[in-house]
């Protein structure tokens, strides 16, 4: 037995060593991912002061005005990290580090702004965008001048260095297009047999609580994306496309009063499962059965251009280079529902899906405003926001 003991002792001595402990990923999901990091410097030129808010966007889902994407991450560079010790008249450049941590593989763009009036809160639609005075910025591809697309490899987690530039030249000139229905109607009802609905919306100052939209306005401007000097006409109706764009989107049920239908988590991406409707072939009028995929339903709506065209077009028909601020818009809404789950191929529906619809105005600056929103009675209390009756306006399909 003593020999056995001696053998065990020798064996154990042989095991002694300083090999490092193994790496073992537990059930914690964060340990089971190999992620990357995007970091770099913000470089600011100008007199604007404030915390720098940076957004990381999925490059395939760009934010307004190009798309409707929402940021996948945000980071804040504290004001003191950037401007500590500077005088009000100093124009910099000011430099500070930023980082987006734990970035999954994908293609991204980085945008941001200097929150000069400290009124940005990302959690509410009424506070989650830039306002007048804020200074925009982005990571730019110096070769093209366009937004830089950052490719985070799926093969190998990495660190990508991306500078983000801000300049006073990108100062936002107006507040967001906060609006209300001109007559104060809480609801406009749309029916298939009721014909077009026409109503006005007015830019409405809102200075309450943390919401500061003191000077809202609608910036009207003809769209000329291809910059050929001719206004675009994407729907071929013979009328130029014009900013602001109007969206009337079907809402979810009353349990999620502000969420879009089929986007209950409000991440801007359709849910895997959801409401699906019959489509109609616009050429033949035949019904296309529901395909089992959730639909993104909007009602056909736009701006009545009667009074707008002179504001957006030169006498020769060319787009005016500068927008014009107006206080009111004439909205025309048709009794037509469209599935825009594939934005490149909008598909009309057989019938108008019943329910509530929200109205969104999108400026060419990317600023938007949507009604109903978190200021609506019955909703605002949940968020600790002030109540504004006009912000409960909703379009109803009975």
């Amino acid at each position: 037995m003593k020999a056995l003991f001696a053998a065990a002792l020798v064996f154990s001595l042989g095991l002694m060593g300083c090999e490092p402990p193994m790496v073992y990923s537990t059930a914690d999901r964060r340990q089971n991912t190999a992620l990357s990091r995007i970091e770099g410097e913000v470089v600011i030129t100008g007199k604007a002061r404030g915390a720098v808010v940076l957004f990381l966007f999925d490059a395939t889902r760009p934010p307004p005005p190009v798309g409707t994407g929402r940021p996948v991450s945000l980071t804040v560079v504290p004001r003191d990290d950037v401007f500590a010790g500077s005088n009000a008249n100093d124009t910099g450049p000011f430099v500070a580090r930023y980082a987006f941590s734990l970035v999954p593989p994908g293609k991204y763009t980085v945008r941001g702004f200097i929150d000069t009036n400290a009124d940005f809160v990302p959690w509410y639609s009424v506070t989650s965008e830039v306002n007048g005075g804020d200074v925009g910025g982005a990571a730019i591809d110096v070769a093209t001048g366009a937004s830089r697309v950052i490719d985070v490899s799926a093969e190998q987690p990495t660190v990508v260095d991306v500078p983000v530039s801000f300049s006073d030249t990108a100062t936002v000139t107006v507040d967001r297009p906060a609006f209300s229905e001109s007559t104060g109607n809480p609801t406009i009802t749309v029916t298939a047999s009721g014909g077009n609905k026409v109503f006005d919306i007015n830019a409405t100052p809102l200075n309450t609580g943390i919401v500061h939209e003191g000077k809202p306005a609608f910036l009207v401007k003809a769209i000329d994306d291809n910059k050929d000097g001719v206004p675009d006409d994407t729907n071929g109706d013979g009328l130029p496309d014009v900013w602001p764009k109007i969206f009337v989107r079907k809402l979810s049920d009353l349990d999620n009063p502000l969420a879009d239908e089929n986007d209950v988590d409000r991440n801007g991406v359709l849910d895997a499962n959801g409401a699906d409707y019959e489509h109609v072939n616009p050429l033949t009028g035949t019904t296309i059965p529901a395909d089992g995929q959730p639909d993104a339903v909007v009602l056909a709506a736009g701006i009545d251009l009667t009074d707008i065209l002179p504001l957006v077009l030169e006498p020769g028909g060319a787009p005016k280079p500068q927008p014009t601020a107006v206080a009111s818009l004439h909205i025309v809404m048709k009794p037509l529902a469209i599935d825009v789950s594939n934005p490149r191929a909008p598909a009309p529906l057989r019938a108008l899906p019943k329910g509530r619809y929200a109205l969104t105005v999108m400026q060419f600056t990317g600023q938007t405003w949507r009604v109903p929103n978190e200021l609506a009675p019955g909703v605002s209390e949940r968020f600790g926001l002030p109540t504004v009756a006009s912000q409960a306006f909703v379009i109803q399909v009975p």
Partner: protein
Amino acid sequence: MRRPHLALALALLMVPGFAFADARSQAKKYFNQGMSLINDGRYEEGIDRLLQAYDIKPHPNVLFNVARAYESLGRPGLAIAFYRRYAETEPGDLTQVNAAIARLEAALPKPQPAVVAEPVRPAEPAKPEPSRGTVDEATMARLQTLAERMESALSKIEATAQATAQKPPAVSTEGPQRDEDDDGLTEVPYEETVVTASRRAQSTLEAPNATTIITGEEIRLSGARSLPELLRRVPGADVMAMGVASYNLSFRGFNQRVANKVLVLIDGRTEYQDFLGLTLWGSLPVGLEEIERIEVIRGPGSALYGANAMLGVINIITRAPGKGSAAELTAVAGNSNRAGGSFVASGGSVFKYRASAGYEQSDKFSRDYDDGRPDVQSNVEHDTLGLSAARANVVATVNPSKDVSVSVSGGVNRFFTEIYALGLLRNYFLDGVNGYALADAKLGPLKLKLFWNHLTGSTGPQYSAIGQRSLLTVLESNVFDGEALFQREFKLLGTHRLGAGASSRLKRLSWGYLSGMKQELHAAAFLQDEWRIIERLLLTVSYRLDYRPAVEGAGPTFAHSPRVSLMWRVNASHAVRFSFSTAFREPTFLESYTDIRAPVPGINGASVLTQGSTTLNPERLTSFELGYRGELGSAGLTWEVALYQNQVSDLVVLSAVNPVPADQAFDERSQSYLLGRSTFTNDPSSYAARGGEVGATWAAVDGLDLRFSAALQNISSDAATSVCGPCSQAPTFKLFVGATYRTPVDLDFSIDAAYTTATVWVEREPDPQDPTRISNLQNPLPAYAVVNARIGYRLLKDRVSVAVVGTQLAQPHAEHPFGNLVNRRVFATVTVKP
């Protein structure tokens, strides 16, 4: 012809001492066998057995019973010799014993009549029988020679015993530093005793709670280097190893990250960190080699210990100063960077001391992340280290008289350990210093205890996402505690043993995770009466009132903790107990005042605010327990069974993450946007925990001890939701088996295995697709087994022992879904007692 007992006594001097795995059990086995033989009239064989028992573990009452047996055998010279030895221990009945000696001496020339011995020392000495004749001078001379020889033999026996135990065979007069100044000796020799259940020494048969004792010898033979690992053998114990020194411990369910419902004491001084609600096992200022025994009280203990003794009490009782080896050196080395050593010195006569110093380090079982990652970095310099602890401790005591003693002690541990934090937080480190100073005094029936606990250090997540805001911080905790305990016995319709006490505790905490320095002054008073209505029926009634001062936004509160226990001792070896008790756990400073902004993983500009609440109710427990404990002393077999029902309410939990008011959305402190707030709150659900536990030990043959325990439990909730974390997180069944064998050829073997059934843990995690969405996810954890083994070899008359220890020898496993992958450790130890 030489008497067998004398031959045995002398033989014990001639050969190396035969060691036993559990000395008390073996001694008791021999004692019971001896008394049985004496009762059968087989005096000489019986005396042999008693002397064997005495050799294993000296107890003064054995001397008395040997004397009685000799008296019965008609050998007054030997009887006188043993009575004298007994008298030297200054027993309570010294006057009667001296009278017996005088009587025997007076009657020495005359032959003595037989008297049947009693199994235990009676209150009155045996009366002399009338003489029946005379003896001649030759007989007298022979008896005298025998008496002298026996005196000599006894001296040597005691010398041998002292060599191993360093304790005179006398009723203890050790100082109060050993918790309620009791070393466990009772009237009944070798009866297993516990001091924690009633704050005085009593038989485990009569304790008002289910109890388990882990002896120092058991600890040493197990080879364990971690105290929680030892506790796997306790029926009903939930031991969860998150890391090499990061353990969570509970009894009868309700284990969790930062387990906070078991009070851990060292010599009656709390090691439970009030501000966090856990025990930092790696920071204890005493080493395993200093432990005399560990008493584990399963079930509520608030009636005596107040807050936090909710599901159990673990009292680590260290060796009395002056007891044991004068010096003991231990060195440890093994794989995974395990290295350490310790030194313990003990000695003194009137002024006794024990001093120790030690160091231990070990790597983690596993690392959560590899080095050089672009996304996550370690926040500690040595990211492989799981534990390092450099400690020193000193105890000194003086006993001016048997009823008066004063003891002072102090210790410090400079440590680095892991803690697995709550909620969205994960593995933390704590790099700091844990220290204490303690003064105990026994003044007759009054006992005073004053202590100061101090903890300071830096802490933070072991790993964090690069670029995210740091959560590294520093803390300093100070606890000042004073307690007075008065105990006396009186008779009124039976025998009463009354205990009354009062205590006060000042807690001060400065921590970056709180909003400013926090301080609370608590007070408590308690009363307990053990009323022995008749000899076999004991009613224990306890009540404690704890006062919590008014704190921010909340008025003062009082917690009431009654306990009633009725024990029926069927006979000397069997007892049945029914207990009703309540207990509570005070909200910790973490739960009351915490104010943490934890970055949302992957969204550097957002945080989740975790806040405490000063209006929390204490967690409450109401318990009903039926216990049975029995033993078959002559076979060395003991067993216990406990059935319980616990009703638990007001559990303190983290609420869901709820939105903060819009005007608070931007947080200036963290310069981030608050996604929401999670607040510590009382769970509105109530939980019922029902279960049964069984435990047994068997000193099967000389040197061999077998141990077994099993626990079955079920936890249910009255909550309407289908997901019940405390229900699915509690293992349904746990099993422990162990064997220890000390061979006569100086080799020791020990092996134990613990099995725990599968569980499902409900833990909070952010959605990987949308980290702003935080939800409770169910994480299944498979069943696992823990196997530990030790082979030791003793040499140079036990002065040196060398051992090889293997821990976690079964399949690598995790004991929590987020815990380390617990894997095999092998190390060697050398212990030298110069």
